[in-house]
């Protein structure tokens, strides 16, 4: 499953651990939420970066105390139809000011890239190779956005206000 990071297909340095996989000596690891919360102290002390895989039905606020210490939060789309992780992503970015890598995992398809980018995701475990290759092109599909989100893109309402004011300058 190709990883898109920074808009490009990239190598994934993280190894995913199950709840009971023995902890490797070094290297970057992604740990399920339950395990992370249970062994947080030990996990954070080891060398290598740590990321957390957070299920879409668990309150993301539980992760807040650790946000400064983790490198990746991986949110889950069990199906592309299940949109709970979009809310979690926006909360992480906009309410809890999480600035680390925010990864979309699960059924991640081309036609959801724009929504995911807007919600604050910046890395993507893409299901299909062709979709991963089309990432940059797809991300540019839209130039107009009606809603303000944490991604900083200017909204249609504000663009109109700017136009109004610039038109008003000469009069």
């Amino acid at each position, binding site marked *: 499953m190709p990883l898109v990071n920074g808009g490009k297909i990239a190598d994934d340095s993280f190894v995913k651990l199950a709840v009971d996989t023995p902890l490797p000596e070094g290297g970057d690891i992604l740990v399920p939420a339950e395990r992370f919360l249970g062994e947080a102290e030990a996990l954070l002390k080891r060398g290598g970066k740590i990321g957390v895989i957070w299920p879409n039905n668990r309150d993301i606020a539980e992760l807040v105390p650790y946000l400064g210490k983790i490198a990746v939060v991986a949110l889950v789309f069990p199906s*592309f*139809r299940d949109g709970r992780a979009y809310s979690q992503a926006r909360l992480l970015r906009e309410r809890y000011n999480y600035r680390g890598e925010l990864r979309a995992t699960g059924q991640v398809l081309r036609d959801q890239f724009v929504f995911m980018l807007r919600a604050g995701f910046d890395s993507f475990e893409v299901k299909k190779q062709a979709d991963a290759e089309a990432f940059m092109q797809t991300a540019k599909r839209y130039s107009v956005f009606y809603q303000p*989100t944490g991604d900083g893109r200017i909204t249609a309402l504000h663009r109109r*206000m700017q136009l109004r004011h610039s038109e008003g300058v000469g009069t």
Partner: protein
Amino acid sequence: MYAYDEIDRTLVNERVSEFRDQVQRRLSGELTEDEFKMLRLQNGVYLQLHAYMFRVAIPYGTLATNQLRALAHVARKYDRGYGHFTTRQNIQFNWIKLSDLPDALADLAEVGIHAMQTSGNNMRNVTSDQWAGVAPGEIEDPRIWSELIRQHTTLHPEFSFLPRKFKIAITASDHDRAAIKVHDIGLRLIKNEKGETGFEVLVGGGLGRTPFIGKTIKHFVHGRDLLSYIEAILRVYNQYGRRDNIYKARIKILVHELGIEKFSREVEEEWQHLRNSSLQIDDEVIEDIRSRFIYPTYEKLPHMPDELRQAAADPEFEAWRKNSVAPHKVQGYSIVTISLKPIGAPPGDATADQMDALADLADKYSFGEIRVGHEQNLALPHVAKRDLPALWKALDKLGLATPNVNLITDIIACPGLDYCSLANARSIPIAQELTRRFANHELANLIGRLHINISGCINACGHHHVGHIGILGVEKNGEEVYQITIGGRADENAALGNLIGPGVKFDEVADVVEDIVEAYLALRERPEELFVETVKRLGVEPFKERVYATR
């Protein structure tokens, strides 16, 4: 009339090219049907029994004449020469090819029409009073706010994959023509004691398998907080709405299971985080949207012009005027409802030729504007009273002057088993037969206001629960059987109807309705007592007795 600017146009065009790419990937096999289904639904494309169905949004029911002509063009070029107006201010085309859809959407985009989110588990078309902006006594035009919500919820990055579909309706009049109490969110525009605009917010209304009347979640949300409050409701719903069972996924079930108090506390808590964010709407933004609604320049006209006085001698004209013409907020003007319920025809259908001709009439007599109401009728919102006789003649020629608005033959019906793959029974032939039974205008007038709503399955697209007489088609041992309820209503006194007894067969439905109506005529205290009022006073029993005594 809302005029798109370059920004709105760009978005719609980008959406069309995205969909063109998606269709192309589907036809080449790159996308499976499972992956494509949600994408096509988000563009209003269903699969029905015989073909694809294409549902186009008519936001808050307002259409310009070039838009109506574009709909006629789509009906003619890509479909079979007609369209079906729905209960949610949409129009549906029943015979369209998937391979033609991108072109049809591109043609519509040229006049600022789209099909975004007319289906799928996202925010659906925001509906409003079809008389918005012209109804006497209206507080202010609710369409400004509808448009604001429309924009905010279009391609929303957080709420495009909700547990289930989500519908918002707005009214700004005492008499609710937008059925706000049977929507996921219903908004009633009001003023506070300072004279500021805000909304009473209702939540959790809906029909379908488990009908609920919406409950008030907040008595006053200030206009500037409207988007943040809606966002808070949607966020709570997105996180906690059920996803394990499609029939329990609507917000009404969440509100019911949590209770309105707990639900509103969750929303309130979320809202406290959101209300002072960039979602707060300043007056300038409202003014900008308001400025792009174009209002007619009305003339100063007499209340009772000579043309109208003279035409009053024609009883056919008078029958139509009394039935289909309503007061306008400006003296000398009227709101004209155009019945799409001619006797013996499918409710809500209009041919491409009728649409074109209506566009011409709207240009001539209604400042180029047409409205679409949830009762599946159209309206011309600004007709000078002096033009009424000429307009009536023209409408009559087109078969669009049936004087049955709000009468027993003004039936709401879903497409039913003739078209729909979800249906268990036919709806349209039942409606057709009923209109024939009550074709006599004097009889229909004598009966007075009576709404019959027909759905061909439990999903309730024909709003049967809130029909004064509701008819629900089900399937029993391979046969169509119809369950009949009475006493429902969709207005400000919204109520769900009660079953009168065992289901009846296809051929018996019209007879049963006749019995119910005869019972009402015998039981009502005075001619002004409406059918629903008699049912409310007496309950179901006397009607039940009458219907089942001989069966």
